[in-house]
């Protein structure tokens, strides 16, 4: 911090020194600097700020974030609720935690599309010519999206409460559920970041992401209990990480009891997904031409 302040202040008062010999290290002794482990975090946060400014400047994006969860809640609760659970009110208690998960997983599909558009625009060329980690532009995009998920989550809770959803547990459980959803969405986003970095056309990114997103959300226990499904589907639903997340969130918000098993399974999945896809995304981004 101190060194940065000093150099910048010096530079404003006198122009860059003329260098007689531009050989390695001569004239610019400060280069190469020691690797700064916090730099990646700092740069990622700067680019997260960028995503948030973009969001603020394009309020129409909020329509997406707001309308989609409301539509899903209305559709499932009133359209299918009676048929599935016998009563819409009971079904609301059952499905709302699931819709919380589904909304955020769906939103994470969008990360790849946004990134692909961004990369095409040329500002990413600038990022690539700056002395920052290749992780930062991607990390910034993902973290920016995580902030958007918070908006969606607030909408789900707000609208849910308005039509009669009641949390059966305490505020700590609610916070734990939200944290779990965000951590998982953060990890999931990296799958779509890989798509966004690899593919050239945002629309193919969208299509491919949807293809992955449907089995993940509909092939899970979000809308119906696994016990009601045929065996082959149950087999998939049981391994689907989204099911673990949904079970954990449902336990934390409504059913009570121990969510530890499902929560740990969710976190393990998140860690694995992140460990595989984040480095892959950075590698793809590094070698992109």
């Amino acid at each position, binding site marked *: 911090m101190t060194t940065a302040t000093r150099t910048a202040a010096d530079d404003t008062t006198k122009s860059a020194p003329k260098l007689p010999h531009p050989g390695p290290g001569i004239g610019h002794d400060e280069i190469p600097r020691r690797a700064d482990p916090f730099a990646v975090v700092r740069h990622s946060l700067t680019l997260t700020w960028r995503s948030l400014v973009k969001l603020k400047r394009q309020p129409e994006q909020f329509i997406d974030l707001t309308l989609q969860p409301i539509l899903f809640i209305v559709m499932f609760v009133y359209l299918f609720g009676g048929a599935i659970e016998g009563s819409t009110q009971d079904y609301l208690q059952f499905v709302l935690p699931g819709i919380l998960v589904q909304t955020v997983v769906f939103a994470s599909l969008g990360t790849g599309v946004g990134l692909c558009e961004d990369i095409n625009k040329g500002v990413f060329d600038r990022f690539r*010519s700056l*002395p920052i980690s290749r992780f930062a532009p991607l990390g910034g995009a993902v973290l920016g999206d995580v902030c958007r998920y918070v908006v969606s989550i607030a909408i789900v809770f707000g609208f849910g409460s308005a039509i009669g959803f009641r949390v059966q547990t305490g505020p700590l459980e609610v916070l734990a559920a939200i944290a779990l959803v965000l951590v998982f969405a953060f990890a999931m986003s990296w799958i779509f970041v890989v798509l966004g970095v690899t593919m050239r056309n945002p629309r193919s990114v969208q299509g491919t992401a949807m293809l992955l997103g449907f089995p993940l959300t509909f092939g899970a226990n979000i809308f119906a209990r696994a016990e009601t499904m045929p065996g082959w589907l149950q087999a998939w639903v049981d391994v689907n990480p989204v099911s673990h997340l949904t079970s954990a969130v449902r336990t934390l918000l409504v059913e009570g009891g121990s969510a530890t098993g499902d929560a740990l399974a969710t976190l393990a999945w998140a860690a694995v997904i992140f460990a595989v896809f984040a480095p892959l995304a950075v590698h793809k981004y590094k070698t992109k031409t």
Partner: protein
Amino acid sequence: MTSYAIEAEGLVKKYGSTTAIDGIDLVARQGSVLALLGPNGAGKTTTVRTLATLIKPDAGYARIGGYDVVRQSAPVRRLIGLTGQYASVDEDISGYQNLVMIGRLLDFSRAEAKARADELLARFELTEAAHRAPGTYSGGMRRRLDLAASLVGRPQFLYLDEPTTGLDPRSRGDVWELVRNLVAEDGVTVLLTTQYLDEADQLANDIAVIDHGRVIANGTADSLKAQVGGQSLEIRPADPARLAETAAIVAELTGSAPDSTTRPGLVTTAVHDPDLLPYVVRRLDEAGIRATELALRLPSLDEVFLELTGHPAEDAQPEPAAA
């Protein structure tokens, strides 16, 4: 011994079956301006992107300030500022926010980043548009913001990929002025690409002419002009009847007979001494000949290419089917 600020040798980059650059050799001294002159598809952008560490060459090497662009890309990135051919500013956040963001990414404190942004916006006459999104800027304003963005970190090397393409003459002059100041005051080494010999002539100490991914000629602007026949003097008398009279005056001053037939109504001749122009003007004035057109013109890129390669400048290759 390393004595050049920019050194590239044998750079090759292939995209599938397209060879974008095919063994580029370049050198530039510290604090000088090197221009890459070439037609569409010659490989200018590919060269710049390689030297900016955005793409890895398939063969050859390049050193910027002594650092290898492939193996020491991090220090290279600390030395360079890049203004790409296509605006690389963020369209979705304001001009001011663009500059602050880059300052922050370069590890300026919040206050430093803001101060630097204000300073650059003022210098590029963008203060009034500072808080609008660049999407609403004119082409010239966007270019200026792009330039400002590449200067945030006070780079010692500035890469400008066709910095004035699409600009009106005034904005073009502004960019030229800026580049000259950066070189004179800050000792910045500039690599710029252009399709115009006059731009290279205005700014560059050295020019490398690129065609089909190779350097086909290089040297100072003067040596290049000498190689391609210097400047040409063009005079169009207002009264076409006085064409022969005009030609006679020119012949007397230059010592050789001008061409007054190839282009109707126009007297043209190659001149090697630009100081001749005032004498021509005075003699025409004394003879009472008014001219509607009177200029010393540099050969166009086409004429340069015709001279150097025997063929006119052309787009290098058709786009390959698969990108």
